[in-house]
């Protein structure tokens, strides 16, 4: 039951996009997001969507994965859609019930917001689907390195992230195990009202936390035993380097951003 959760759902592959430097991909995604936010019309969205689709095809990720990843935000999309649909002000009223009214502006706004949200998640998904969590944290660490000068703990943050990611499957497995052990003792996680269900979680959560702390302790000890003392002076086995493909990707994403800006200035919707 818990095996269906996909966090950092990396989809291994060897496409050009998979092989790009993680920093490139992070910046690329950032450009994507900026483009989405400054877009004022559906034409820009169409352009971005087409571009995202192209990236998806190049990286050989099936649409199914993307759609599955959209499921968790479906509720938020529906919520913003309805909110915008009913609460937008405008003169072009179509239907009206008391305070609620549907206007053409409302419909347009609702659709616009929904598409924006879906595009945002799709683009970030392209990043997480093509980049392994390790690469991702590596990339982030390097990107944040310049900020170390003003005291930003880039290495520590990256290390924390990779440890957290590393332990997600372990914790899921542990949860499964403890759930079973307590079920064997007659625990009932599935029936009863909200309060009863929350209370039923105690026998699961306490051992889980105790276990997590124990693991953290052990890991800290193991890291110290291998002379870990933070990022200073630490070298990498595979240092990140930009290659030709990375520069091309930068160029392409920058062009996309420029085109979106141009479309906005020209007011072409």
């Amino acid at each position, binding site marked *: 039951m818990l*095996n269906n959760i996909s966090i950092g759902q990396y989809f291994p592959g060897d496409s050009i996009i998979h092989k790009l430097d993680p920093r490139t991909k992070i910046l690329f995604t950032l450009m994507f997001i900026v483009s989405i936010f400054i877009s004022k019309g559906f034409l820009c969205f169409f352009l971005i969507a087409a571009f995202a689709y192209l990236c998806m095809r190049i990286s050989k990720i099936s649409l199914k994965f993307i759609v599955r990843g959209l499921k968790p935000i479906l509720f938020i999309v529906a919520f913003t859609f309805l909110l915008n649909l009913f609460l937008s002000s405008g003169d072009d009223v179509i239907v009206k019930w008391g305070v609620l009214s549907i206007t053409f502006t409302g419909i347009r706004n609702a659709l616009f917001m929904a598409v924006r949200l879906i595009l945002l998640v799709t683009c970030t998904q392209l990043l997480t689907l093509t980049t392994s969590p390790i690469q991702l944290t590596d990339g982030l660490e390097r990107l944040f390195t310049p900020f170390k000068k003003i005291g930003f703990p880039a290495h520590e943050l990256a290390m924390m992230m990779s440890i957290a990611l590393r332990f997600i499957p372990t914790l899921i497995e542990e949860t499964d*195990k*403890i759930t*079973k*052990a*307590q*079920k*064997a*003792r*007659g*625990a*009932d996680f599935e029936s009863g009202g909200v309060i009863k269900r929350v209370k039923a979680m*105690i*026998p699961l959560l*306490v*051992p889980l936390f*105790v*276990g997590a702390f124990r693991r953290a302790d052990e890991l800290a000890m193991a890291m110290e035993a291998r002379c870990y003392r933070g990022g200073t002076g630490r070298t990498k086995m595979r240092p990140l380097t930009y290659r030709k493909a990375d520069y091309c990707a930068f160029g392409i994403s920058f062009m996309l951003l420029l085109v979106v800006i141009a479309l906005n200035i020209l007011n072409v919707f």
Partner: protein
Amino acid sequence: MPVTIENLAHVYAPGTPFEKRAIEKINLTIKDGEFIGLIGHTGSGKSTLIQHINALMLPTEGKVIVNGIDTSTPKSGLEIRKNVGLVFQYPEYQLFEETIEKDVAFGPKNLGIDEEEIRKRVHHALRLVGIDEQLFHQSPFDLSGGQKRRVAIAGVLAMKPNILILDEPSAGLDPAGRAEMRRLIKDIKNEGTTVIMVSHSMDDVSKMCDRIIVMNKGRIALDGPPCEVFKHTELLESIHLGVPAASMLRERLNKNGFDLPDDIYTIEEIKTAILEKLKRR
């Protein structure tokens, strides 16, 4: 409280690329009062099998019938778990209550038993596993590893199961802890409980159990009393299980000219047999 398993098969993640047939064609009858040792390699399907007996897992194919109740009957889980206690590997990690007494009472409470009876059961179970009365109101997290494990086992015993399944009860314990665990399991058995013990240790199993089930690749490879099972030294070695040290000695001696009977497997029996042979020479 007999258990009948008919043609049991379990498939993990059916219909996906990760599909895995964990156990297949398991047919088994467990009678009252038996002490069964379940051995097999990692991934041989032992854990999957035992979780079926207590309805934590439901069969993909076939049937598991505990005391006349089919485990796949809806809502039968609690009724079955009342009868079949399952102690997982490293059970000490399931403790959660403020005091030892409360933790052991968790199981019986879930069964809806009245306070007085719960108290009696908890005290009986804790005494059985050798936890001192002074400790009853302490936090289970302050105990030593071995003690924690015994408290966890008491938590299952307090449910008064007719069948107790233990998954590697002595894993990770020191020799003294192992000896104590063996004694405890024998005590539990002597109270009339059917015991199924999953183990890697051939020596433990050969010393304690009166029936041994060997699993290999999701199927039952051997099933019988120890003296029968340990005759098959070659088969056991081919599935990387090894045999008790004494059986090994018997096998080697026989290869080199002795003809000791092949249904003996304890060091004492072998000693007597060798002495007898030597006397006759």
